[in-house]
């Protein structure tokens, strides 16, 4: 397996083998104190701010001995003066060895990769893809459960969350049993579900949260955003019904784990944080070894 020189734009580009290889490498990264990327430079091009993702990539690069340049928002770049994305990439690629890009428009990272001579890693293109988030979700599940053909329940806004679309797509490759629970109007788009037909995954939709939880090994919770509801009263009602508390978890399997892409508002009650189920903070932490693996592999520093 050789990912050297490759772009990491979409989970759809990666095979099951590629993903397994990245997860395995991430595991090695956790224990390693080598600095295989010494002398290499990462450019973080954030056309839209995302402090968490940027810090996670920067930490990953620096832990491997590399350096980080770049910008944290569009306002500080020549793009603000109307420069095209293509021209910006053509300039920046001369100063670095790898580009991590986040952009508010869908497809921007693919376009950047088309133009760039050096590897491009997508750190979020509008509502489309954020492959390292999916990889760190998978890594967390693998680390906790030692397998990916799990029973998973996804709860919350499944319509707009790109995280859950990519995660479901990836888990379908491992024939996971997937249960979807969402308020009316925020269901997983038919288009995303249709896309899963190529795999043998078992997918079912329900509105019975407790049963969904009691059958699951993993519970993946997402935020329900207020702006999706025209009526604030409706939002309050839905929010209450989809809130995870110790009471909602009373029939959960003993070894259930709960994940959340963070930031959370109050869809998981704070009392759950101290329960044996909570793994969402570990999940954030796992972003670093996963991004170390991705950077190391595309730069050829680790194999």
């Amino acid at each position, binding site marked *: 397996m050789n990912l050297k020189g490759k772009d990491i734009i*979409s989970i*759809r580009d990666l095979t099951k083998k590629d993903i397994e290889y990245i997860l395995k490498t991430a595991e090695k990264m956790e224990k390693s104190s080598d600095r295989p990327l010494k002398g290499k430079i990462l450019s973080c091009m954030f056309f839209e701010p995302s402090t968490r993702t940027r810090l996670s990539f920067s930490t990953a690069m620096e832990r491997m001995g590399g350096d980080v340049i770049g910008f944290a928002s569009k306002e500080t770049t020549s793009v603000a003066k109307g420069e*095209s*994305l*293509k021209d910006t990439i053509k300039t920046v690629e001369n100063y670095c060895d790898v580009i991590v890009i986040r*952009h*508010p*428009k*869908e*497809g*921007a990272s*693919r*376009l950047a990769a*088309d133009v760039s001579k050096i590897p491009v890693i997508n750190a979020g*293109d*509008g*509502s*489309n*893809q954020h492959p390292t988030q999916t990889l760190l979700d998978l890594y967390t599940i693998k680390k906790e459960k030692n397998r990916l053909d799990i029973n998973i329940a996804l709860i919350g806004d499944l319509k707009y969350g790109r995280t859950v679309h990519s995660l479901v797509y990836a888990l379908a490759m491992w024939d996971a049993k997937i249960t979807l629970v969402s308020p009316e109007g925020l269901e997983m788009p038919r*288009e995303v579900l249709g896309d899963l037909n190529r795999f043998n995954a078992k997918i079912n939709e329900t509105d019975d949260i407790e049963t969904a939880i009691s059958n699951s090994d993993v519970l993946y919770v997402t935020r329900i955003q207020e702006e999706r509801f025209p009526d604030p009263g409706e939002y309050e009602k839905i929010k209450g019904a989809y809130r995870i508390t110790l009471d909602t978890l009373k029939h959960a399997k003993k070894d259930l784990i709960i994940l959340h892409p963070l930031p959370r508002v109050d869809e998981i009650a704070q009392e759950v944080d101290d329960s044996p189920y909570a793994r969402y903070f570990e999940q954030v932490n796992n972003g670093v070894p996963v991004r170390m693996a991705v950077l190391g592999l595309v730069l050829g520093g680790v194999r």
Partner: protein
Amino acid sequence: MKDIRVKRIKNGTVIDHITGGQAFNVLKIMGLRKEYPRTTLTVAMNVPSKKLGFKDIVKVEGKEIKKEEVDKIALIAPDTTINIIREHEVIKKEKVNIPARLEGVLRCANPNCITRFEDATSKFIVEEKCPIKLRCSYCERVMSDKDIVRQF
């Protein structure tokens, strides 16, 4: 009967086996409603057909169809056949065909797609032919026949 119809045109194009009901979209694709409103046309709709159930036929006098127009017609009427006529003779007959990839033919329907903002050639992968399903290579959104027809 069909032969006689074809021979009635001196120079131009006979577009046959169009999926029933799609004739007007064919006219739009060929610019026959706006760019060339004075073209002599014969349009037959919902003609019984053994193969298709119902088909439409469009005959265009004095205009030979262009490659890009053929590619667009393929997307909405995959069984269409094209006959190019010169001096009453069919000089070329071909069935339309949907390529595996489309470049530059259509615009992405996603208003937030980068191809709407940057100077980039649109690229689509044909995921399904019938009914047509195209995936934008940039934003990864899927376009259906409705999104496509809207652009003609």
